[in-house]
């Protein structure tokens, strides 16, 4: 099931460049972050539609919003904390409140910048963005889904935040059109529902092999859209399995797990176990895989936590 490894940033940059060939309204903003966001080809092919601002993320969001008022579709990508935490009020007012058609993309999300330290990790971006009314949050799970998510994000009219990682990720799924707000049942099962998003999905799929050996039949739901949540899908699954686990590379407080917990809070007999990073300043590591293991977010750790939750 797990296929070719691809660089998420290059995949993203290429996808936007392809779309820009057809859609002349697409423009790109950079804050000294263009080439590292995969926009090398875009810069060569559409220099007049590429705006290098320098290191000024707050200004870039404002300028992108201004350009959106005139009908353009600005895509602004940089390191995740610098497009979310840093310019938060500009995102809230100029993109959210003003409903401007800006596509904000946070790369090297979660703990993928494992060794750069706390300032460069992004474990609160779902939490920040979900508080902005009218915001859409995408977290595609594999390279093909990143490509399709780019198409959907640019077709959709309104503010979007998309989150992508840094290390290469494998192809997991067949190509299909990306429908914003829709999740998928990756595998059916009745013992527990595991809800995953973004890069965690690969590890959940691997964890499932360990769970199968232990005789646990998990229903696995993939959420390439975190906001709006696919409420019907999640509520139906919870009604069936009663036990729900959420998995995300984000603080366990305030992110997708919190959203799911809030959604299910009125359902009798349903409990939710949230997996993610505890609400602390994360430790750092030279190696992303090591750090995932440290936080029990690799396949082994996820399987261990699910088993413990089910008392097995």
């Amino acid at each position, binding site marked *: 099931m797990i296929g070719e490894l691809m660089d998420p940033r290059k995949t993203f940059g290429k996808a936007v460049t392809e779309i820009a060939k057809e859609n002349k309204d697409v423009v790109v903003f950079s804050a000294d972050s263009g*080439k590292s966001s995969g926009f090398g080809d875009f810069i060569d092919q559409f220099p007049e539609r590429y705006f290098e601002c320098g*290191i000024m993320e707050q200004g870039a969001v404002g300028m992108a919003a201004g350009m959106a008022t005139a009908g353009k579709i600005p895509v602004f990508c940089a390191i995740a904390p610098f497009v979310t935490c840093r310019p938060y009020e500009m995102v809230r007012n100029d993109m959210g409140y003003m409903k401007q058609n800006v596509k904000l993309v946070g790369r090297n999300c979660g703990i993928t910048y494992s*060794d*750069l*330290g706390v300032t*460069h990790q992004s474990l609160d971006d779902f939490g920040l963005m979900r508080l902005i009314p009218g915001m859409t949050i995408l977290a595609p799970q594999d390279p093909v889904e990143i490509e399709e998510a780019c198409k959907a994000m640019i077709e959709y009219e309104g503010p979007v935040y998309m989150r992508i990682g840094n290390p290469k990720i494998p192809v997991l799924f067949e190509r299909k059109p990306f429908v914003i707000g829709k999740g998928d049942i990756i595998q059916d099962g009745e013992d527990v529902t595991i809800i995953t998003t973004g890069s965690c999905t690969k590890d959940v799929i691997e964890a499932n092999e360990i769970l199968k050996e232990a005789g646990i039949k998990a229903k696995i739901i993939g959420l390439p859209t975190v906001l709006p949540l696919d409420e019907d899908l999640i509520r139906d699954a919870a009604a069936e399995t009663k036990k729900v686990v959420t998995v995300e590379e984000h603080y366990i407080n305030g992110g997708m797990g919190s959203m799911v917990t809030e959604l299910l809070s009125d359902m009798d007999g349903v409990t939710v176990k949230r997996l993610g990073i505890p609400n602390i300043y994360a430790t*750092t*590591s*030279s190696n992303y895989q090591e750090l995932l293991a440290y936080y029990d977010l690799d396949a082994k750790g996820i399987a261990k936590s699910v088993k413990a939750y089910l008392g097995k």
Partner: protein
Amino acid sequence: MNKEMLQKTANQIRKDIVTAVYSAKSGHPGGSLSAADVMTYLYFEEMNVDPKNPDKADRDRFVLSKGHNAPALYSCLAEKGYFPVEDLKTLRHTGSYLQGHPDMKHIPGVDMTSGSLGQGISAAVGMALSAKLFNEDYRVFTLLGDGEIQEGQVWEAAMFAGAKKLDNLIVIVDNNGLQIDGKIDDVCSPYPIIDKFAAFNFKVIAVEDGNDFDQLDKAFNEARLTDGQPVAIVMKTVKGKGVSFMEDQAGWHGKAPNDDEYKQAMEELEKAGEA
């Protein structure tokens, strides 16, 4: 320290920087090397600091606003005696206190946490303001990248420091001409840097070659004598200085050398140290 000793120390710090980044397999050699001389000058000549007593109240402060130059800061601190030089090889390793960006809570001698560009200078202004308020005579030095000064926060801090006449604040701009996406004037020109700081009521000292200790010496002596306004030292440097294939190359902003490159870099620095 005399000039020769400063040069020798700076050369050792360059070796430490390259070695730390090599053992981390990631990190930022370019800006660390352009700033190696001025940081050596600060720690070994200019600042009143004591590695045995890193928190002493009347010490001069240093804020590395361009936090990605952590390898340079850690190397200076280690050579000065704040912690073992050996530890530099643990940079960015699991469990090491030497994270990718400076962390004041875990690293002796680090006066301010940094990593998000533009933020350090505001903290430095706060420190300088505190000294004024409590009639303390320590000074505050902060080092910024020439790309970093594109951040609006830098100019908020500068406006405040100028308006409040914080003459105990010395802002140093490492004008190596490069940032990640290329030349600073192609990306989004911050020039004229000198006139900008002057317009914000700074005394501006331009240094033609910020990798030359005589010129640094002259600039910091002038800064010491400045009264009634903050100082900006705007110094031209060479990014990657001291390692031939890294010099003036944007590609070496944030990349570790491989085995062969490491060997060559160390040979070049070894040679320079003997000269």
